């Protein structure tokens, strides 16, 4: 090496864009231009305070120290290297601002992954092996830390009508076409319980694992439960609305007919006031008005009772005969102008049935029905009571035979289901029978109607009611 080369080499530290210093225990021996610009010190100046402690630690030792110092937005690392048997150290600085930013970014992402409420996992696209799971994902699926790594992706998919493998293939197929997939998936935990997640799935090239699928899972089990509850509530509201519409329609119809009866009667009575008719006709019309008042009152009571029925009423053991006797007296009193014969035949006494106060409304409405739809001069109602065992349950069976106009087969099928062609306003059951049906339904009982004499509806009907016996 010639002198020129030696001089040129001596410039090496001074031309270095990174700060380079040589310092003794208390002063700067050498500092290059980059160092001077950064630290604002020059040779013979005291050692910068920020470095003093680290320098003291390594001076006279053979260990190297590292020191990070921030200069505004810049971050530098200084490696402090002692020289053997010398009373000074060499300090080599380097700008690590960008590297620190990158590290911070990675640390931040890691923090996010660790603390986020969504579960995240990576699957290698080639073989479907799970290569990463965040803590939330592991917790969500009930696995220990790292336990899912290396397992096949299908361990997370619940078998529905499709197998876990079919679900995976379906999602991968869409990913290959569009690059992303999102939707609701039924997942399975380690303990076998299934739960619902909303998954956002996409693919990217990972520097280590190659092409991977990244899936972000949000546990939507609670949301699904709420949605299910909401659906059920909507269904209940829809049914309640439909019921209210039916009740409104029947109420309006019946009230209009009651008013028609009264209006026609008043018209006749007014006419006869000027031109008196025979007293029999007069009595007949007054009786009709009287019945319409009773009918209107019963209509109001039935509507009120309908609103009182609960799906799960409080039921107690009731003697069915007391209320029956009460209902018979009510019918006879209400239709005192009519010839009504009511006969009760029972081979059982002392039984109790699961019911409540609304039992009376069952009896009354069934008997009102028998009277209302009856053209005979003498209305006959025969009530047979017996015990019956059906579907391993003990019931008390009530049969209300009448000699009314009968019920056609087409009406029998839907009369207690509330489905008797309401949309075309064909005559279905009235509010009275709807009430009867609803009460019996709330008692877990049964009701249906038969011909009094099978195949001959002109002989009248038989309303059969089964109510649970209390043992």
């Amino acid at each position, binding site marked *: 090496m010639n002198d020129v080369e030696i001089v040129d080499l001596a410039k090496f530290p001074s031309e270095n864009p990174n700060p380079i210093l040589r310092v003794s225990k208390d002063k700067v021996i050498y500092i290059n231009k980059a160092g001077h610009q950064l630290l604002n010190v020059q040779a013979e100046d005291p050692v910068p305070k920020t470095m003093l402690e680290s320098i003291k630690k390594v001076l006279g030792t053979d260990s190297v120290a590292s020191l990070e110092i921030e200069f505004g937005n810049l971050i530098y690392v200084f490696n402090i290297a002692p020289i053997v048997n010398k009373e000074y150290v060499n300090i080599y600085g380097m700008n690590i601002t960008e590297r620190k930013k990158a590290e911070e970014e990675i640390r931040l992402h890691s923090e996010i992954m660790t603390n986020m409420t969504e579960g995240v996992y990576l699957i290698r696209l080639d073989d479907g092996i799970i290569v990463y799971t965040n803590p939330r994902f592991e917790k969500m699926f009930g696995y220990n830390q790292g336990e899912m790594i290396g397992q096949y992706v299908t361990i997370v998919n619940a078998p529905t009508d499709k197998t876990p493998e079919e679900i995976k293939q379906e999602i991968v197929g869409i990913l290959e076409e569009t690059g992303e997939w999102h939707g609701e998936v039924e997942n399975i935990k380690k303990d076998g319980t299934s739960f619902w997640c909303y998954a956002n799935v996409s693919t990217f090239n990972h520097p280590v694992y190659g092409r991977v699928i990244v899936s972000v899972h949000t546990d939507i089990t609670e949301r699904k439960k709420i949605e299910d509850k909401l659906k059920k509530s909507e269904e209940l509201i829809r049914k309640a609305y439909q019921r209210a519409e039916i009740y409104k329609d029947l109420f309006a119809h019946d009230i209009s007919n009651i008013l028609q*009866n009264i209006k026609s009667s008043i018209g006749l009575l007014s006419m006869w006031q000027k031109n008196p008719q025979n007293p029999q006709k007069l009595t007949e019309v007054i009786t009709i008005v009287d019945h319409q008042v009773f009918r209107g009152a019963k209509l109001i009571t039935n509507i009120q009772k309908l609103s009182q029925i609960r799906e799960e009423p409080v039921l107690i053991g009731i003697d069915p005969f007391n209320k029956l006797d009460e209902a018979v007296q009510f019918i006879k009193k209400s239709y005192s102008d009519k010839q009504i014969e009511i006969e009760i035949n029972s081979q059982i006494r002392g039984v109790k049935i699961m019911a409540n106060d609304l039992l009376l409304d069952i009896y009354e409405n069934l008997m009102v029905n028998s009277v209302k739809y009856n053209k005979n001069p003498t209305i006959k109602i025969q009530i047979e009571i017996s015990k019956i065992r059906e579907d391993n349950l003990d019931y008390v069976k009530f049969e209300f035979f009448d000699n009314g106009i009968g019920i*056609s087969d087409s009406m029998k099928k839907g009369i207690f289901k509330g489905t008797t062609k309401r949309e075309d306003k*064909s005559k279905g059951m009235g509010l009275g029978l709807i009430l009867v049906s609803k009460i019996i339904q709330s008692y877990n009982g049964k009701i249906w109607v038969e011909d009094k004499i099978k195949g001959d509806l002109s002989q009248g009907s038989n309303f059969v009611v089964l109510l649970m016996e209390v043992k």
Partner: protein
Amino acid sequence: MASILLVEDEFSLVRLYELVLTSFGHNVLAVANNGEEAVQKYKNLPFKPDIIIMDHRMPIKNGIEATEEILEINRDAKIIFASADKDIREKAEMMGVISFKSKPFSNERLIANIEKALKIKDL
């Protein structure tokens, strides 16, 4: 005087209509308590009624269905609807009923409608 087929399932109303109609000099030719019975009676009556008073909401067959069948038998049958179901008025009128009486109506209105219907026939 008109001969009338009365179609109504409420016995009390049948009786009141009978009293009203006869008071005004009309003749109740037959009574039917449902739509099916109305069609059968209309078919079988040797002398067809001048007027049919038709309720709508009845068992087995409703008034609209019965009207359709009666009008198929006789396009000129004169039908007066007397119903609580106001929402079927348009349908009934489109089918060609003479008039639609919405319950409750007065006896005088019913009689006036019958007389009007008879005049239409006379023309």
